[in-house]
């Protein structure tokens, strides 16, 4: 693929669609540069591809700068397919997933603060195992607590391109519900930190 500048436009489109189509997981933008190393041109090609499949039974989807084909909304409900059995999430796990999604990055003790109860063993574990959450950056606070964030797999699973697409996020922000200043219970990590300083 050294001579990729010589490949004509249509061939590039074909290579892109074939590569994305055959890949088992969403393909990173960077990996697609092998077909067109000029980023602007590559973006244009992908836009063209998006348009080409617009009215198909499956469409080109962009999830956080990764690309894949997914069946279109129009036909999905009419298809009778069982691809993979989904696990039934417990109430605690469902709430925890929601809190992580809307509040990310968030520490374990902040999750506990919102729910008013400590997270039992296994709750985060399940979400981590499914691959919907992963550890994010550590906070620059004493003890450098680790945070949790959602993954691209989570976005893909729920048909979102990025977390800003989560419904109700703006209302949540406006209502001030994403703040932690207003709390009855102290963040348990504050106590631990105190202790560590001893």
């Amino acid at each position: 693929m050294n001579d990729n500048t010589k490949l004509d436009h249509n061939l590039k489109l074909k290579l892109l669609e074939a590569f994305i189509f055959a890949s088992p997981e969403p393909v990173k933008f960077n990996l697609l540069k092998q077909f067109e190393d000029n980023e602007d041109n590559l973006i244009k090609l992908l836009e063209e591809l998006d348009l080409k499949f617009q009215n198909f039974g499956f469409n080109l989807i962009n999830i956080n700068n990764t690309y894949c084909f997914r069946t279109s909304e129009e036909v999905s409900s009419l298809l009778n397919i069982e691809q993979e059995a989904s696990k039934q999430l417990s109430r605690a796990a469902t709430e925890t997933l929601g809190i992580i999604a809307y509040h990310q990055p968030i520490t374990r003790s902040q999750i506990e603060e919102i729910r008013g109860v400590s997270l039992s063993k296994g709750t985060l574990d399940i979400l981590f195992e499914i691959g919907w959450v992963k550890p994010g950056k550590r906070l620059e606070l004493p003890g450098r607590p680790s945070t949790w964030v959602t993954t691209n797999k989570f976005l893909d699973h729920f048909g979102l391109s990025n977390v800003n697409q989560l419904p109700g996020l703006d209302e949540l922000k406006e209502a001030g519900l994403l703040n932690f200043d207003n709390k009855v219970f102290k963040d348990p990590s504050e106590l631990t930190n105190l202790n560590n300083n001893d």
Partner: protein
Amino acid sequence: MTQNFLKHNILELKLEGFEGPIDLLLSLVKDQKVDILRIKILPLAEQYLEFLKKIIKNDIEIAAEYLVVGSILAFIKSRELLPKDENENENDEIDDLSEKLKFQILKLAEFQKLSKNLLLRKQLGIDFFKRGEHEIFSKKIKYKYEVSLYDLTKSYAKAISHEDNSKMTIAYSKLFTVEKALTNLKNSLCFFKDWNYLFTFLPKEIKDTLEIKSAYASHFVASLELAKEGHVSLKQNPKINDLQMIKND
């Protein structure tokens, strides 16, 4: 370690299907069929305490978190029932506490709704699909190893926990930790406005001699820590020789 151990023991006591005290409060609010933004704390407190009373009869080892919220509500209730003194700024404190509690209820309600809606979304593999077949089209195949971060951390955890088992570990001792003393003092402070002898804050239920001794020591350290942070002031009367503590505003 000790704290985690305690935490998980407490968690095993399920309170009739409620995921914690705020969850219980929320369901009481929902029972009242009132607008969640117009929660009245007083009737809510009464219902919560009534509920707690019933539970305590059946199970004395009720989860500590329920009792903490219970005592906050009892405090709010008793203050609201007393005639209001204009000069006291305690009323502000009560309002503040009620507001914070309302905020927590509201926040949990919002997140419960959003989480539920999240799972109602169309989901991959159920409502929409990826390509079903795995196709290999190239002659040059590079193997991609399927290890998730979860696999990695899990097997690491496994590797080191058997490492730990093969080593000597210091025996667990029944000591009252500074961490616990801090929590205890912080929780108690809401209810004591005046000067109080530090050691009146010691939990009454400790029987073990060693644990009592350690509780004295840890409460002393904890009080210094709180004073250092500016949460409390300490004084010592040379005649009585006992430390007294007051909450700073």
